[in-house]
């Protein structure tokens, strides 16, 4: 089961959500533009809505700042903790930030400088001076117009006073008329204290203008109640300047004078005043303007910077996400989990990488499976081979033939137990030794010949008997064959050594038995007539002949014939050794009987019988064993007596017969030990060979017969002892 990890969202719902989000963002941007336009155009910055929107924007900006800072801090922490992919993300975010920050800062600086320069230019001293001077011109014109009216009004009041004309009198009208003409006024009137027109010298246009101006006068303005009040008024075609002079604070009425200034004067003056107002208004807004521009520039710069940072972080995350996923997958693969797979619905280079990764993982998984199965099979084969090797080793270690394997340099590679026993060496000392070094003398030269033979004929076989041992007492049948390799080359040799010593001995014994039988058969018959004839001649002619030679010769003939008959008898016994008939019987009584017999017959020898423990019954041929022990005891007695005669030393001769049960070996061990001269190494090795005897005139068949009988009992007999330490004949008889 594979674990699928999505690199990019494949779910249509996710894509739908994304599209929805983008649409929402786009709509929000449009709404922001529209709302901003409406608020700035129609509602103004003084409104609560504007204030709320500003705060919302500030909140959003803070939110973006928070998100950016949070992501930035998180990135820093990841980088510090050496989280995989953090360095790449940091680099991308920094690149985006630098790329956005540099032009943004430049734009801000340039923009701020431009704004500053522009504002300084707009509000430079020359402009202000020009505007103020224009205003001063207007003021001078106004002052001039008003001062003329003021002068006329003062003169009129003086004139009225001098003339003693009370306000409202008829003479006032004339004076007003005179004043109007003399001063070139367009309007001269007397107003009642109720500010109604009483006398007027005016043109219709001026009158109409006065009607408009009258409501604009600050009749109740604070300050000097007798002060002149003046204003400018636009008429139908021309502009007028009016001045009102309160008489006694207005309690006696007012004098109103007016003069036309010409068409459009007021408009121009108004424009000058308005221009100055606007300039001053602008000048008062210089700092707010600058702050506003700086704010806008800073806002844009922050939006660009934060947006770029946010975009950089997001892009970095999007770029590193698949890389991280792939890295995570690679780690899992390195840990051995090959079940991971990636799925990417995109078509970009990452998708190519993802697909390649999946292919690689699949291949690895298949290879591992194959490797696992191959390993399992190999393990099985190894187990089988180990079992086979164990079997072979067991077989090799259990067989009686010695098996050696030689390498290309004819050095021993392997050796089984039998080989070690045959060669008399430990396995560790055999391994690595050259084959020819394992043998000596004639055997070594034969081995060298064998090796040369195989060098020339690697595919052949070689078989030969080799003597082993110091006295060549053992015979080994060595068979050598070449081992072929899988390519058919023969570079190694297998040496099989079979100990045929006993076999040859048996063969020789059988041969000697046959010879003994034939000799006994051929010689035996003529011996009796020879002896009888010699005895007959003794009887017939012994008494007649006085020559002692005749008697000696005939006696000699008889003696030698008897000796020959004895030899023939022994030959016949050797040749006709009967088959043993094994029956359960006890050995102890037999030994006791024999010891008693020899104590009686050879009383000068101390005969000892030691039975260590109860000897159980075992399969034995009592008669054969009696004959065997008889030979052993007879040999021992003859050796002791011969030694005494030879040395002439009186000594305490003794023969000890001991028997014990060895339960662990399941045998009865019997020893016949004398304190005679002992055996040399040659004598010990050849003691049981036929016709080997150290007795003069001995047939050498006694121990041979003993060995034959013991062998028939499936036992083992050997001769022990060193020169001067006596002879021990050791016999092992199996219990079953």
């Amino acid at each position, binding site marked *: 089961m594979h674990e699928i990890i999505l690199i990019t969202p494949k779910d249509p719902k996710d894509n739908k959500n994304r599209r929805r989000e983008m649409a929402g963002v786009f709509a929000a941007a449009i709404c922001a533009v529209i709302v901003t336009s409406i608020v700035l*155009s129609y509602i103004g*910055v003084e409104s609560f809505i504007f204030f709320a929107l500003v705060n919302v924007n*500030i909140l959003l900006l803070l939110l973006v700042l928070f998100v950016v800072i949070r992501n930035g801090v998180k990135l820093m922490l990841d980088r510090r903790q050496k989280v995989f992919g953090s360095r790449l993300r940091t680099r991308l975010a920094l690149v985006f930030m630098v790329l956005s920050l540099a032009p943004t800062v430049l734009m801000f600086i340039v923009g701020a400088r431009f704004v500053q320069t522009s504002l300084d230019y707009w509000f430079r001293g020359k402009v202000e001076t020009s505007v103020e001077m224009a205003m001063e011109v207007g*003021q001078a014109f106004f002052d001039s117009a008003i001062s003329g009216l003021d002068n006329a009004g003062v003169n009129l009041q003086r004139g009225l006073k001098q003339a003693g004309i009370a306000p409202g009198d008829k003479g006032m009208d004339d004076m007003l008329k005179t004043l109007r003409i003399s001063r070139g006024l367009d309007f001269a009137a007397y107003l009642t204290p109720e500010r109604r027109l009483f006398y007027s010298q005016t043109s219709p246009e001026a009158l109409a203008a006065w009607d408009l101006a009258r409501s*604009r006068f600050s009749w109740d303005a*604070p300050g000097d109640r007798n002060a002149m009040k003046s*204003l400018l008024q636009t008429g139908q075609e021309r502009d007028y300047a009016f001045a009102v002079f309160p008489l006694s604070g207005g309690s006696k009425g007012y004098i109103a004078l007016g003069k036309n200034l010409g068409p459009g004067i007021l408009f121009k003056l108004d424009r000058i005043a308005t221009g100055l*107002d606007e300039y001053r208004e602008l000048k008062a807004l210089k700092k707010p303007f600058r702050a*506003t521009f700086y*704010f806008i520039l800073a806002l844009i710069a922050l939006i660009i910077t934060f947006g770029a940072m946010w975009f950089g972080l997001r892009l970095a995350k999007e770029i590193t996400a698949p890389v991280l996923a792939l890295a995570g997958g690679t780690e899992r693969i390195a840990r051995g989990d090959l079940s991971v797979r990636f799925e990417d619905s995109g078509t970009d280079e990452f998708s190519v990488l993802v697909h390649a990764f999946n292919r690689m993982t699949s291949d690895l998984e298949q290879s591992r499976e194959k490797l696992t199965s191959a390993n399992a099979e190999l393990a099985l084969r190894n187990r089988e081979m180990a079992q086979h090797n164990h079997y072979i080793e067991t077989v090799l270690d259990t067989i009686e033939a010695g098996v050696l394997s030689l390498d290309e340099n004819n050095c021993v590679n392997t050796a089984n137990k039998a080989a070690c026993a045959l060669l008399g060496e430990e396995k560790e000392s055999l391994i690595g030794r050259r084959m020819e070094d394992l043998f000596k003398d004639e055997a070594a030269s034969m081995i060298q010949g064998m090796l040369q033979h195989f060098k020339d004929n690697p595919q052949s076989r070689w078989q030969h008997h080799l003597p082993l041992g110091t006295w060549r007492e053992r015979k080994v049948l060595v068979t050598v064959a070449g081992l072929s390799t899988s390519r058919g080359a023969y570079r190694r040799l297998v040496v099989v050594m079979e100990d045929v010593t006993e076999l040859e001995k048996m063969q020789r014994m059988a041969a000697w038995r046959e010879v003994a039988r034939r000799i006994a058969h051929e010689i035996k018959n003529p011996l009796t007539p020879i002896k009888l004839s010699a005895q007959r001649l003794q009887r017939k002619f012994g008494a007649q002949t006085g020559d002692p030679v005749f008697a000696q010769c005939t006696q000699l003939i008889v003696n030698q014939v008897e000796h020959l008959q004895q030899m023939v008898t022994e030959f016949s016994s050797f040749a006709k050794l009967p088959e043993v008939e094994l029956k359960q019987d006890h050995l102890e009584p037999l030994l006791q009987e024999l010891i008693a017999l020899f104590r009686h017959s050879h009383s000068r020898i101390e005969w000892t019988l030691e039975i260590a423990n109860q000897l159980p019954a075992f399969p034995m041929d009592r008669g054969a064993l009696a004959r065997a022990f008889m030979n052993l005891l007879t040999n021992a007695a003859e050796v002791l007596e011969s030694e005494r005669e030879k040395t002439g030393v009186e000594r305490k001769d003794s023969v000890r017969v001991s028997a014990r049960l060895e339960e662990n070996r399941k045998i009865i061990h019997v020893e016949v030990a004398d304190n005679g001269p002992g055996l040399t190494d040659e004598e010990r090795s050849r003691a049981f060979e036929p016709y080997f005897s150290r007795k003069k005139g001995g047939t050498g068949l006694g121990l041979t017969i003993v060995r034959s009988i013991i062998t028939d009992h499936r036992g083992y007999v050997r001769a022990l002892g060193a020169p001067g330490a006596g002879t021990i004949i050791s016999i092992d008889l199996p219990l079953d």
Partner: protein
Amino acid sequence: MMTLLRRALIIFAVLTLGYVPSAGASPQDIVFHELTLDSKTNPLTVNLGFGLTNYPLLADMLRNGARAELQCTVSLQRKRLFWTDETLAEKKLAYRLRYDPLTREFLVESGDRPPMRHKNLEPLLKKRLEKIQVRLGAKAMLEPENSYVVRVVAGLRHLPGLLNLASSVFFKNETIIPDTSIAMSFDYEPLPPAP
């Protein structure tokens, strides 16, 4: 560390939200000289008088092209224990102040009345503001054994200039003098009818 950063940002946001661009420390205030309620007349009339503490400063502002409006709201409210006071009557007064560079006079305009002009601002405003009568409404609004409060709120702020840049300039402080209020509470007990 993230928690600390988050908290700092939240606090900063709150402070930013709570920040209201307020008028620069104004060197002048509105002072109330008179506040009386004439309950004998019908309708109820409030006699009000107030002024400023620094006329020259305002005069300089007006000479430099500023246009200001003195807004005054007079309200009669009935006190309630467990709810906000009920506004029974309210009148809003507005006095537009400006300077005519041509005539070099200060102007105070109010409603449909012709503007009052004077070369000095202080006497002009004093003339205009020291004696104000506001008719609130019929005396029948008052109910016996109820508590009422006459509240007056006055403030001075810039008027949109000739260029109407209010929609374009962000950091212009429109408030010259923040709203200042005065209140007068009373319990209404009708006079016994004349014998």
